[in-house]
């Protein structure tokens, strides 16, 4: 389906590309940026920081009840302890999903996102439809992700209006008792940590 509103860059990619190159060359000539440093930053966000970090945090919380309690009490320190601290994740609050409560995160004003544990935000999170509707119609939004939240489950939406960052701790799926921490981390999706997804167990 052609949709020009979601990827406007497709229509004038070359103009933008040229403008970015011109800016980088200007800033390089002025001594404000260095190409090698830029390469290293791109590499960090493409290959080193991403939702696999968050998945390891979640898996640890599922297998280690003391870690889980620490994570919910002081998310920042518990995440730091696994080595996932960096900029934009200075204060991280972890939200626990249960059979009674489903948490979902958004940033209506821009696209604040917990980089150290989830990497840079995906298209859905940056999109105008998500930013506008997540707070007003979270159950409708969740249905677009294939999640029908029962009426007796409370939906809590967290709008990231400050420098505090939110990470959802999804429920451990049923039927995963025999899996080790590494195998559990493989089950954790990025969207389950944003709160737009709920994990299904091996039993369905």
């Amino acid at each position: 389906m052609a949709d020009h509103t979601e990827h406007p860059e497709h229509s004038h990619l070359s103009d933008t590309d040229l403008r970015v190159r011109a800016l980088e060359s200007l800033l390089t000539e002025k001594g404000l940026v260095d190409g090698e440093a830029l390469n290293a930053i791109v590499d960090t966000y493409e290959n080193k920081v991403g939702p696999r970090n968050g998945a390891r945090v979640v898996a640890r919380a599922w297998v280690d009840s003391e870690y889980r309690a620490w994570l919910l009490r002081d998310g920042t320190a518990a995440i730091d302890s696994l080595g996932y601290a960096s900029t934009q994740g200075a204060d991280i609050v972890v939200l626990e999903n249960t059979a009674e409560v489903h948490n979902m995160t958004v940033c209506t004003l821009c696209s604040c996102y917990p980089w150290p544990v989830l990497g840079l935000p995906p298209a859905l999170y940056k999109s105008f439809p998500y930013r506008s509707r997540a707070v007003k119609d979270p159950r409708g939004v969740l249905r677009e992700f294939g999640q029908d939240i029962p009426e007796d489950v409370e939906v809590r939406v967290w709008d990231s209006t400050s420098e505090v960052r939110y990470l959802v701790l999804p429920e451990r799926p049923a039927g995963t008792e025999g899996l080790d921490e590494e195998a559990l981390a493989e089950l954790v999706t990025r969207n389950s940590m944003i709160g737009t997804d709920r994990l299904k167990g091996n039993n369905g």
Partner: protein
Amino acid sequence: MDGVHDMGGMDGFGPIPIEEDEPVFHAPWEGRVWAMNMALAALGKWNIDAGRNIMEQMDPVRYLSSSYYQRWLYRTEDILVERGMVGREEIETPPEQRKLEKLADPLSHEEIVTRQRAGKSARLDEDIPAQFKAGDQVRARNIHSRGHIRLPRYARGKAGVIDRDYGVFIFPDTHAVFAGTKPQHLYSVRFAARELWGEEASARDKVYLDMWDDYLEAC
């Protein structure tokens, strides 16, 4: 300001784009824009609130018709000009016609990372009394600031409850215009979905927003 960036509760933007196996950057230029931002931010000529403030002043038609990284590109150009680091005419002059003096030596990646880690938190180690405590009934003030504000329109004038006190943080409204950090308590404030959106919302659901003392009054 009451700009288009303040999107919470707006209708009409259509379905959510859900991409499978999405790349971090959809084109190489997106990564370059991102990296330039990180490198420039480490120079310390602006802060995150000032950056958002500039983004919010973008022409609304341009804001809505640009992609995420295009907005970062335009914002970067605007703030470089605003902070006197680059002239607008330098941005618009073709590279082959430019004659520039090197201003400084750029930061290495190691230095950028070190500086990011050193300045990462908006939390302040200051002994400021809290105006509210968990469980207090509060109302978000009805403020329509022309400047930078992190209180979305949809919550203004609405009644909620202090859920937790996060401690003392930088106040973005002043920080965005380099007018000081105005340290004060930041809270998570819980609102019933029906208080915000009326009877169509679920009676069970809640929306939580982070709010500073200056955004709140007792109710």
